[in-house]
């Protein structure tokens, strides 16, 4: 039972990451590899606020969102000037710079040692230290994210995003400031990733920089490309499949110490095969 609750919690965290990245990559057509950075900023902000100042969980999550949004605003205002592969390249650059800050700003982040002893959420005396309550909290966060994303993509704002993806020049002719739209969706998506980071940090109670590398961004990209770009249900299915694959490998008898590398091998090959055979993924409405 504990094990299933663990999988449900992981699924919810990665589904939030997938849904939010899909807004940028799938709906707006911008290939961003910075997502792991925002996931990490949210996780570090929450971890530090909870361990150092002992703030209330919700307040820490909220401050994490504010901080991540501000950083996303500055990174996004640079990235929004680019298109296509230059956008992708710039986003890889920002992801590596952020990782380098997690690793080397030792006074703040304690570098490779990471931050341990992060308390589980405690809301109005209701402690989320049990797995079932935490899984419930993660699922609620996922539900809210899903509804928010659905609201965004069905709104007129979402239609402008899709128009930018199809033909940025044409929508500019109609007087839309595409730069602002690209920036805004980037910030919204980063804020959602920050929530996923807060959940992750309080769930595993220990974080270190190695979780937030560029490979984590590639993993989240694999989730949404497998599930299908510009399809929110696809991101849920993609997260479910990619969370379950390593568990299946473990049941098939692969030793735990090579689990991480096997996971990388599987999703690397998967991206490759998808691009060759089915670039739109399982349910995708758009292909890169």
């Amino acid at each position: 039972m504990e094990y299933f609750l663990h999988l449900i919690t992981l699924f919810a965290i990665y589904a939030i990451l997938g849904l939010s990245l899909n807004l940028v990559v799938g709906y707006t057509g911008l290939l961003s590899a910075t997502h792991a950075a925002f996931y990490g900023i949210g996780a570090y902000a929450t971890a530090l606020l909870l361990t150092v100042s002992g703030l209330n969980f919700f307040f820490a999550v909220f401050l994490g969102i504010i901080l991540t949004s501000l950083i996303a605003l500055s990174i996004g205002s640079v990235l929004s000037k680019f298109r296509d592969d230059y956008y992708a390249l710039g986003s890889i650059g920002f992801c590596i710079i952020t990782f380098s800050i997690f690793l080397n700003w030792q006074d703040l982040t304690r570098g490779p040692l990471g931050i341990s002893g992060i308390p589980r959420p405690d809301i109005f005396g209701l402690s989320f230290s049990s797995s079932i309550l935490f899984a419930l909290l993660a699922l609620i966060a996922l539900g809210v994210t899903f509804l928010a994303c659905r609201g965004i993509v069905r709104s007129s704002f979402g239609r402008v995003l899709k128009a930018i993806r199809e033909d940025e020049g044409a929508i500019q002719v109609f007087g839309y400031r595409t730069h602002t739209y690209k920036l805004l969706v980037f910030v919204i998506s980063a804020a959602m990733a920050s929530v996923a980071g807060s959940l992750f940090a309080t769930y595993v109670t220990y974080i270190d920089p190695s979780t937030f590398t560029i490979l984590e961004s590639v993993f989240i990209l694999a989730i949404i490309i497998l599930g299908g770009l510009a399809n929110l249900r696809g991101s849920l299915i993609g997260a479910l499949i990619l969370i379950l694959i390593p568990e299946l490998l473990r049941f098939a008898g692969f030793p735990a110490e090579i689990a991480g590398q096997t996971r990388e091998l599987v999703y690397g090959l998967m991206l490759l095969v998808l691009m060759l055979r089915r670039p739109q993924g399982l349910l995708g409405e758009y292909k890169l």
Partner: protein
Amino acid sequence: MDVVFQIVANSIIAGSLYTLIASGFTLTYSTTKFFNITHGVMTAVGAYTVFFLGKILGMPLLLAIIVGVLFAGLLGWVLNYFIYQPLRKKNASQLSLLVASLGAFTAIQACISLAFSSQFQTISHTAVMQKTFSIVGASVTQIQLIIVASALISFVSLTFFLKKTRFGTAIRAVSDDEEVAKVIGINTDKVIGIAFFIASALAGLAGILIGFDSAIEPTMGLALLMKGVTASIVGGLTSIFGAVVGSFLVSFVENFGIFYTAGEWRDAIVFTLLIIFLMFRPNGIIRT
């Protein structure tokens, strides 16, 4: 003053390594117009081939090095033949080629980690050519002189090859316009295949030289790739000479940058340079 000479010497050595990576990257980019991420992992492929043949199987070092360079080149050719060429035939976008190469990169890196563990390793049992010379106050080892010589030789021969041979003319024709090159009877697939072979072999050589100079790890490719890409963009992505200029600009900025800050910030410094160039001079410093 001595310390300045030492930084200059270090910059020249690093610039030579980046030259090997960036000139190959520029060669494949100019013929295929996509950011080939797998180019980076070829450094690890070359280095680990020498590690396996020389250190584990006990093959003579020089032979192991030659096999390592050829194997990296061959793998580059194979990836192009089985992945990138079919994708180009399907008119896949640059972004889907980029994602496919990101997948291949992740998968190959994971294979190397699975086979040889993800620890730092030395490439051979004995220290090779570590005799130190003192040149105008800067100390350099024999292997570092070989690095500089290799970069010089490959730059001169690559330039000669591109300017003076029929094959080089064909590569330049494909870079200018693949369709026109095809119409006048150039076998563009073969030309691009050979460009991939040369580029990957040079990256493999860079990885091997790094192995003899310091140490190797499976994830060495990403930072090297991003520095090579930065150098190529600074150099304008069209000429080998540009790539060389870019490589030395990157290495001087990096080495003087870490002198004023600290060694662990080297990646962040280089990617800040990349983002500055993407913002203000996306076509590089050399106008063609």
